[in-house]
């Protein structure tokens, strides 16, 4: 049972984020794009936080977030974007989908752990 779902099409990023979170005692699952993320979230009700990339094949991270809120009707799971994107319009779209935060890559482990604590605290 995972607490955190990491969604990224880059295996390098998935490995790095998942390994770091596991090393910090967190239960982690991963998905390779937004479509896969939706499937994994539906199958595991213990997921409380999603850390997702924006630009991915098949389904991007923002569309996935919108579908989580609308189609899955799940407003409980927290979503953070971990992305190279930094455009105000994308952030606005993220806010509208109930995203809790935005992290610009590269991945900074301690900053993410601190963010998770803030979100859960």
């Amino acid at each position, binding site marked *: 049972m995972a607490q955190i779902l990491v969604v990224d099409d880059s*295996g*390098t990023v998935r490995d790095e984020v998942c390994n770091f979170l596991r090393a910090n005692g967190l239960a982690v699952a991963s998905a390779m794009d937004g479509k896969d993320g939706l499937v994994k979230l539906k199958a595991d009700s213990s997921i409380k936080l999603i850390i997702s990339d924006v630009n991915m094949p098949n389904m991007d991270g923002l569309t996935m977030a919108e579908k989580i809120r609308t189609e899955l009707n799940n407003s409980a799971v927290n979503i953070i974007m971990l992305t*190279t994107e*930094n455009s105000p319009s994308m952030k606005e779209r993220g806010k509208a989908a109930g995203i809790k*935060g*935005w992290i610009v*890559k590269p991945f900074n482990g301690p900053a993410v752990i601190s963010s998770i604590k803030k979100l859960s605290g």
Partner: protein
Amino acid sequence: MNNKNTLISKILVLDDGAVHLESQKAICEEWHLLGIKPQQGDIEAAMAILKSNVDLGGIMLYENYGNKTGMGLKLAREIHNFRPELPIFLRRDSVADVSGLDKKDAPMFRCVYTLNDLQVLRATLDDSIFNRIYPNDLVRGITEMTSAALQALFRNCDIDVETPYLVKDSIIYGEVFTMIAIESNWCRGYMMLQAEEDSVLNLISHRAGHESRIMTFRDLNNVLGEATNMVWGSFKNRYAGHANGHGLMQSQVPIVINHQHRYISFGSEDSQLCLKYSLRESNNVQTEPVSIYQRFVFNLNWSPDEFKDNATMESLLEAGELEFF
């Protein structure tokens, strides 16, 4: 006039006239050309250099190269057949035109000049290599953002960047390359990262935490893909702005990739911006540096007058930090 204060170009110099050595040096210095000369003045040595350098801007060729009458022309035919995208600047002894040459040979040369009058060579270098202005701020910014992305992925490495240069070559370096579209209201084209598989694979095998399993080309693909993604994101955030009216109506041209010849064409003959990054393990300075070549090919639109650096906007949010909504 070009922005040669910052950008150079590598030129293969096939001109062994000792008397003209100083003139050649002066031309290279004036135009910020990095001259590469074969040890021996023969066709084999020249072609060997050509085969090992895939990032050239052009070729300066003497008609009677190797002190043999007409050898330069024979060499020109081989070069033109092998790398037709490279401009050849032919030096002749007395006449600055194609008189006396075979009609079929004349189109091979971008210009014909003599040492008595270098004006035509200057103008041709401007037109054929330095025909595109890459703003200094852009080149510097690209270097910074790419170094930062590579450093994030290769944390155990020191990264150096060579002086940026312009290339006309269309040959692909190494065995693996990534390519991503760059879109903005002032430039459109592609960015590529090119590398040799084994050397980068060896480098990522030494990344912390990966000693326990054997790395494959898929791991390499992932790392280079993510490096490309990070540079693309930084470029977009900093330079692309938020273009309106772009999208489905945008033009496209076919990209031709010839695997047999490791050749890629974007349909444009304009000089490409090339940067070479050398990665060396910090705790193992004896190892050979690993090269990653970065090329920018703005083949679909290039309007540097509208270039705008949004560095301030990007710096509002430091990489890796969370912005809460």
